[in-house]
């Protein structure tokens, strides 16, 4: 695969990479007949972002004989390569070395050429079995508006709740009726429907999602100076953000939302919606599962047929999660882990990794009275690519054997996870839940 772009478009791709880097640790690149798509998934699998560049953005675009190609690379080297794009006049991306490295050639002003070789980790791709076209509620507005909404909230806020009624939209950092810490300052921003370019809300709904990924995506919208569309249904259903620019660039962000029964600060994510599937070189299975490429967006969303054929450890983890459906996994510990402990995921031994995660997880559990998600940290361990070190760009293919995974420990942690939590988590009924019988206690 080989494609070239000129400076301005290369800068757009750099901005896209910067936004995706705030979401996930790895970049999934897919090149096919329609263009180049970059995707990223966040560590807790509660958000998936994909940015597609159509073929018209590229000066030349050559695909391999098989017709399409996928690769997954670590995000850190990408950020380093696409950092200073001001001087770039011409950019060339190609896959070399028998599909093991992504070569980036940047021709800059004053006859300077920068070349980088980023090791390809493997050929994975993300598909999301979420339908993005039928959402009852859709709001379309300029990025400046959403920027203002995002700026009204402190940058340390984790979640955003949108309460949409047919007339107005209210953005809050809390959920009505949820009991929170007494020292928590509630903020709310009320907007009328006339402020948006297009506002269609069929019935009122309250959705809560993580603001971090939303902000990352907003950053890209600002770079493109484009408008954003929010599409959502109700609590628990995926929250979709779309950006479209000139038919050339289409971006999609799928966020999971808090389920109606959950209190704030703990978010239930839906791993079943988003799958990571292996696409071996010769296999044509993925192609068959996608419907014809009529609409760009639909093409990215394969049906969830790949679930059954895969028996990697990822899916063992997933099954275990379904056994305990009442355990909302907290995004927070995973996020902290992702930032601090799992930064150099590949460099550390998997054992050490698990130790660090266990320690921080225990600390997290003891400090904050929320259900802690122990499963998530082990997911990261299992996902750690054992062999290649992507940061070391020019090394030979060494295979460093991975230390054995503590799979037994996984089950133990799942069974005893409730021990790490506070004994009592007060929950008030959220407005989404239905009251089947009134309170019959005469004293209350």
């Amino acid at each position, binding site marked *: 695969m080989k494609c070239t772009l000129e400076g301005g478009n290369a800068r757009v791709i750099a901005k896209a990479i910067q936004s995706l880097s705030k979401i996930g640790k790895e970049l999934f690149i897919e090149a096919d007949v329609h263009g180049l798509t970059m995707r990223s998934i966040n560590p807790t699998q509660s958000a998936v972002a994909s940015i597609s560049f159509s073929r018209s953005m590229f000066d030349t675009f050559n695909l391999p004989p098989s017709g399409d190609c996928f690769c997954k690379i670590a995000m850190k080297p990408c950020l380093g390569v696409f950092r200073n794009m001001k001087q770039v006049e011409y950019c060339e991306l190609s896959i070399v070395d028998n599909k093991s490295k992504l070569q980036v050639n940047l021709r800059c002003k004053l006859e300077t050429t920068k070349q980088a070789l980023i090791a390809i980790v493997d050929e994975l791709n993300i598909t999301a079995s979420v339908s993005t076209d039928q959402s009852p509620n859709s709001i379309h507005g*300029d990025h*400046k*508006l959403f920027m*203002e909404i995002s700026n*009204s909230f*402190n940058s340390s806020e984790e979640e955003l709740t949108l309460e949409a009624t047919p007339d107005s939209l209210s953005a809050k950092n809390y959920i009505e009726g949820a*009991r*929170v810490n*007494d*020292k*928590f*300052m*509630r*903020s*709310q*921003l*009320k*907007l*009328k429907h*006339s*402020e948006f370019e297009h506002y269609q809300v069929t019935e009122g709904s309250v959705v809560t999602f993580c603001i971090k990924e939303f902000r990352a995506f907003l950053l890209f919208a600002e770079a493109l100076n484009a408008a954003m569309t929010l599409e959502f249904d109700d609590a628990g259903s995926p929250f979709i953000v779309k950006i479209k620019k000139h038919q050339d660039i289409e971006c999609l962000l799928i966020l999971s939302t808090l389920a109606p029964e959950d209190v704030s600060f703990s978010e239930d994510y839906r791993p079943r919606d988003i799958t990571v599937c292996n696409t071996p070189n010769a296999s044509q299975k993925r192609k068959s599962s996608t419907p014809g490429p009529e609409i760009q967006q639909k093409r990215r969303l394969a049906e969830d047929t790949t679930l059954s054929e895969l028996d990697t450890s990822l899916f063992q983890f997933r099954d275990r999660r379904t056994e305990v459906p009442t355990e909302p996994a907290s995004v927070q510990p995973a996020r902290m882990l992702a930032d601090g402990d799992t930064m150099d995921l590949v460099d550390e031994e998997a054992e050490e990794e698990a130790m660090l995660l266990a320690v921080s997880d225990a600390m997290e559990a003891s400090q904050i009275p929320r259900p802690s998600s122990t499963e998530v940290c082990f997911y990261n361990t299992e996902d750690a690519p054992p062999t290649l070190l992507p940061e070391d760009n020019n090394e030979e293919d060494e295979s460093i054997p991975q230390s054995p995974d503590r799979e037994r420990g996984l089950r133990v942690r799942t069974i005893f996870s409730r021990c790490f939590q506070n004994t009592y988590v007060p929950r008030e009924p959220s407005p989404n839940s239905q009251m089947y019988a009134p309170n019959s206690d005469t004293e209350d």
Partner: protein
Amino acid sequence: MKFHAKMLDVLYMREFQAIAATLAKLAKECVMLVAQEQMHLIVNEEHCSTSSPLVWVSIASKDYFPEYQMTPARPEHDLIVLVMSAMHLSRALAVLRSGSSSSVHSCKLELKQIQFPCISVIASVVSPNSSEPREVVHDVPVTVVPPSDWSSYMLPKVPNTQIVLGVPSLRLLRSLIDKLKNISPSFIFHGSTAGELNLVAESEMATITTRFSRLLLHKPDQGQSGAGAETESEIRCSVDTRKASAFFNALQLPNEEIMIGIDSERCICLQLDIRSNVVLHSILPAVCAEI
């Protein structure tokens, strides 16, 4: 117990936000005393180990708040005493600072009880993107102090100083103190009735004196003529550098003139007249100047 106030003037709102920002930089907790005609905000962290001086702001309610209603818990009381986090208040009011990008129409403060008592700061903002005003609501959680505990939250008294001088350039004083804070752990303020203020920082290696001359003498009154004007008396007091530096660095207000009152060897009293009925006071206690 009820409290309801509304601000309509953009300038006043910006000043109120600046006051809240100043207090947020000084301490974590802020005490709000709501009286019938006045509102006071006090920051007192002297008993904590942090090096923040005692600062309080008195605001005459009729200037800032065209609508101001206060009903205490019981008719015999005349105050509502609330304790809140200064950072929360400052963040809640941050929208009032927006200035050029969007204009604020009004700001309401209301004491409410949702799950816990809080002051709701409701700002009505018009942004350039939209033509209609938007509502931004922040609920700042507060603790209501019962009358039995009021004695520890009362308004400090302005100490009796022998001399008060007006320094016209606050910025200069601030940068000066910033640079001198590494020299010595204590400063000495010398004030003379001739209108001179000397700021001295002494260390083993050097003594640095900054002289401000031709300052306006507010007290003793310059109007008094006769024998009193002939004698020049000098009053001095040493204060802790960290507290002085913390005070000057925290100030977010655009005012440039500050009045420094010196109570011989007892304290330095700083007063900033933000406008006629809005005054910021601070007391820097004296320390023993030891080298």
